[in-house]
Structure formats: structure tokens, C-alpha cells
């Protein structure tokens, strides 16, 4: 029931947050007095021991309200810019409330669409289906993915797949480029004792109406330690463990929050470069390039996405000819989007409202040929033994 209160957007002219929170609590008290409770319900533990709070389904407690008030009092004793930042974050958390929505299982049709658009990620889709079945066994259906590590060649659609999963679950999605991460501060915050103390990305990810966002750790195998030896992946040891993640504490904010509902999806090109202790915390799924038979579905998916988000899309015919699909199916998935856009540009310059296979071939011929540097990771060529 508190779902609405937790939504980040407040109506214009709505009363201040504290006033609103008191009003909502009072309305709930009146409704509870006449047993007006949504069914089914789940019982969670509140601040007071031996008190069970009846909550509507799909809502869970992110933090204890008493802890938040303690931290607010502490934050007021801070000085300088850090005080302002920490207070802002704590007040936002209070405004959003301690109860947050958890993701529910998606519709089977959405999983079918995911499977159609990413046929080469069948292993993950099958896993999703099993997790949905498990989630539906709960009194209040919920959805929680195990930490997933998608390993595969560059451009095989790992990141795009992870984003689609987030969209399918209707949860916020946060992307972290691990290749550019040099310390764990970015993720878990920097202590408020420092003048530059700030909360981390994980705290930010949980400051929405939903407490089960998806965090995509892109290029996990490329995360490198900085000069002072702070391992940027160090935070994963605790947040990927269900027990410790239930009381995750951001270094700047210091408020224990339940981060166990966060779904982690990491991508990498070579999982052997990841520390075994971290690797063991993930469920490793190898993603290969789509096969020749799967490519037309991938191309069609990219085309649909492009037509949905491009301003010029309405000018062109909504469907691609079979021959064009076949021509594009010869390209790596990552290059399909730019090639297709170039082909549309080629068609537009020729005054056509449809793309021909010739357009694809022409823009492909103009595309620079990329040669990998060195020879260690060079792909095996036909006729070679490698």
C-alpha cells in the first residue's frame, strides 16, 4: 500500500514530505483499525521486536526508520559540503520511505519476446524462466536474479541483453563501466570524514521507488587496481553474498540498508581474468555470437529498436526486405546498428523509402577494415591451425 508514497515523483503542490508521511501513516492507521488490509499480505519485522507489521505484497523494508533518524541526527553534526550532501541523501531516503517495491515476475510474453530478440542468449532466458517459476511460488510473487556473469566476445550483445532484462522486469537499471573504475569508492561511497565524501553508486541505485534495481557491471574483467592498491571489485565480496548484502552500509551515509534484492549482471570478454573468489560468486554464462540461423532474428530486433527510437523512422517503410536481413546477418551484431543506419542514409540520399541489399553492401565496402593489433588474440583465419 505504501507503494505510492515511495514513488519518486510527487504531485505539484503536494505537501512537504514529512507532512505527507504523517498524513499517510494516519490514514493507514484508520484503515487498519477497520481491518482494511490488502490481501495477500506478508509479515515483516519492524523496529520494535515482537511486532509484526502487515505489509502489502511486493513491498519490503529497505532500512529501519529508527536507524535513519539516528543518521540524520549524526549528519547534522557534520561540517562543510559533506554535511549538505549527506543530509540531502538522507532526506531523500526519508521522503521515499523505508518501504520499497520489489520486482515481480514478468509476463511470460515478455520472456518470449526476449528469447525472440536474443536467440543466442537461450541459456539465460531458460534461467529466467526457472526463476520466474520460483518467484511465482512466493505468497507475493517476486523476482530476484542470481548474480550473472555474461562472458563472450565483444559485440555479442551482452550489455544490450542485460538492459532488456531490466526493462522486462520494469526495474531501474544502472550501468557501471568497470574498465574506468579504479577504486571501490565510486560504488560504496567515500567516508563522510573526507571533505569529498560522497555516497556511492549502489546507494544511488537504491534511492528510487524500487529496491530491486539491476546493476550492470560492464567489462568486469577490465577493472584494474589504482596506485594505492584499492581493488575496485573489492565491494563485490560483500554485496554478492546474500547474508552480508542484507546490511550493506554506504561509507558516506552509514545507514544499513538491505541490498540483497539488487540483481547484478556483469559482462566480460574473458572470465579467466577475473579473480576466482569473485568469479565463484557469479553464475557464469557464456554468450556466443548468434549463429547464421539466429542472426535474422537479432537483426530484426535491432531494426525494431531503431525504428522505435529514431526520429526519421516514420519516413521509411516499417519492414526490411528478406534480402536486406540476409545481407545484415553476415555482420557482427554490434556493427549491425551502424551499418543499418548508414544503409538508411544511403536509401534516403537515393530518394527511396526502403533499403536495398545494395545499400548494405555499399556502406559495408566503405567501412574501414579493422585489424587487431598484435597476433596473440587474433582470430583464427581459414586454413590456419589456430
Amino acid at each position: 500500500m505504501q507503494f505510492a508514497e515511495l514513488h519518486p515523483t510527487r504531485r505539484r503542490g503536494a505537501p512537504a514530505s514529512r507532512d505527507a508521511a504523517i498524513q499517510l501513516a494516519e490514514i493507514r492507521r484508520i484503515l487498519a483499525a477497520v481491518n482494511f488490509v490488502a490481501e495477500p499480505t506478508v509479515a515483516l519485522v519492524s523496529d520494535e521486536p515482537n511486532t509484526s507489521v502487515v505489509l502489502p505484497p511486493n513491498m519490503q523494508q529497505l532500512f529501519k526508520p529508527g536507524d535513519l533518524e539516528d543518521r540524520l541526527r549524526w549528519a547534522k553534526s557534520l561540517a562543510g559540503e559533506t554535511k549538505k550532501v549527506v543530509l540531502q541523501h538522507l532526506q531523500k531516503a526519508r521522503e521515499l520511505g523505508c518501504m520499497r517495491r520489489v520486482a515481480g515476475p514478468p509476463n511470460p510474453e515478455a520472456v518470449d519476446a526476449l528469447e525472440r530478440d536474443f536467440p543466442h542468449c537461450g541459456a539465460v532466458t531458460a534461467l529466467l524462466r526457472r526463476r520466474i517459476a520460483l518467484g511465482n511460488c512466493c505468497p507475493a510473487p517476486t523476482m530476484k536474479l542470481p548474480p550473472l556473469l555474461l562472458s563472450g566476445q565483444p559485440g555479442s550483445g551482452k550489455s544490450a541483453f542485460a538492459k532488456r532484462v531490466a526493462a522486462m522486469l520494469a526495474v531501474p537499471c544502472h550501468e557501471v563501466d568497470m574498465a574506468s573504475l579504479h577504486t571501490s569508492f565510486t560504488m560504496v561511497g567515500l567516508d563522510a570524514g573526507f571533505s569529498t565524501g560522497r555516497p556511492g553508486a549502489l546507494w544511488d541505485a537504491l534511492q528510487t521507488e524500487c529496491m530491486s534495481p539491476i546493476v550492470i557491471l560492464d567489462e568486469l574483467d577490465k577493472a584494474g587496481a589504482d596506485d594505492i592498491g584499492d581493488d575496485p571489485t573489492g565491494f563485490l565480496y560483500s554485496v554478492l553474498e546474500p547474508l552480508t548484502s542484507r546490511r550493506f552500509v554506504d561509507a558516506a551515509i552509514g545507514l544499513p540498508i538491505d541490498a540483497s534484492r539488487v540483481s547484478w549482471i556483469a559482462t566480460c570478454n574473458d572470465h579467466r581474468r577475473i579473480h576466482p573468489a569473485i568469479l565463484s560468486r557469479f553464475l557464469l554464462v557464456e554468450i556466443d555470437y548468434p549463429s547464421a540461423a539466429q542472426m535474422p532474428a537479432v537483426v530484426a530486433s535491432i531494426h525494431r529498436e531503431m525504428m522505435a527510437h529514431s526520429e526519421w523512422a516514420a519516413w521509411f517503410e516499417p519492414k526490411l526486405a528478406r534480402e536486406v536481413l540476409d545481407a545484415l546477418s553476415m555482420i557482427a551484431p554490434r556493427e549491425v546498428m551502424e551499418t543499418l543506419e548508414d544503409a538508411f542514409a544511403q536509401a534516403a540520399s537515393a530518394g527511396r523509402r526502403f533499403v536495398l541489399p545494395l545499400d548494405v553492401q555499399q556502406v559495408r565496402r566503405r567501412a574501414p577494415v579493422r585489424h587487431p593489433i598484435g597476433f596473440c588474440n587474433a582470430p583464427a583465419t581459414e586454413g590456419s591451425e589456430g
Partner: protein
Amino acid sequence: MSRSLEPNTPFQEGIRKLVDRGDSVPDGWKVPYAKTIAGLHAVACEGRAHIGLDGPLMADCNLYVTHRGGDRVVAGLLGRLERTTAQTCEACGRPGRLRVFGQTLKVLCPVCAAPRLALHAVSELLRDLELADERGLSEPLTFDETQMQLRPMLSAEVWEPLIDHSGDEPPTYVISLSQLQALRPRLEAVRQTLVATLEAGHGS
């Protein structure tokens, strides 16, 4: 300025009337009202014997007492009453602010305002649903358009996200009119509960 103990001066007479009419003051404003009377007693003197007082009067947003020929001290005391009551719940005396219930205005704290605002919101929604039913409308209600007080009455499951496949923005939640129509009996029960709560004297 000498002290005056003469009870029949206009000023003392005015204070006596204010005391007599104290019962008409809402419960939540009785404390600032009593403090004002005590203050007027304290500053009563020969020099202020001519000052006329009239009240207590209730505006939409505060309680006030008028004066004729008052000086800065009396004006200050009465001004403080106006300012204090404008920020004090007239039902319980906790800090409050002006609330609008359709055509009615009241200064209330959030606790006392909650059932009134909720009743107003649910009555409006039920009326809109009736109109939508009559006119055959089917436009869904978005979360942002929903009055805050209705939120505890609409459980989380009835809100459906409009999925944005880009995944960049948090989803917008909507509730279809057909779902709301199905909830009408439940909302009507809530309305009756709120009416009963207010009639039983909650925050009155």
C-alpha cells in the same frame, strides 16, 4: 504608568468578555488564547483603561481579537495570537497549517487533516468514476495524477508499469479505469469509514 485594578474600565471589561467567550474557541487554539488573555491581564493599567477589545473572532486561517485605541504592546499581543493560531492545529494544538477541503479552510496538523483530506480525495475519485462510467471514458489514471491520500487505499498490485524498453527512465505507473471501477465498492467502504471516523470526533 500606574497599575489599574478597577474592573469596570473598557479594557478590563473587554478582557472579561474574552474570558467568558473562551468556550467558543476551538480546543487546539485554547492555549494561545489563554496566553493572550494572561498577557492582556499583565499589561492592564490606567493608561490602557480606554482600550476596547472585541472577540474572539475566527477567520479561515486564524483566531483574532480586535482592539480600539490599542497601543503597540496590546497590538503586539493580539498580533502574536493571530500569528500563532495561523500555525497551530485548531483541533489538537500541534503545529499545523492551512488546509483546503473543497470550499472549506481549516488550520490543521497532518494527523487531524489526514481523514478529512482522504475523505475529500476518495469522494472526488468516486464522483469522477461515476462520471467516467456515465460518459464511457477509459483513459487510465497515472500515478502522478493520483492524490497522495488515495495511495494507502490502492494496493501495489493494481499499479501497472508502462514499460519503457530503453530502460533509462523509471517506469510510469498507471491504473486502468476498469480496475478502479472494480475497486468502487472497496473505496465506498473506505469513504464510509472515514465519515464515521470524523463523526466520532477524530481531530474535531
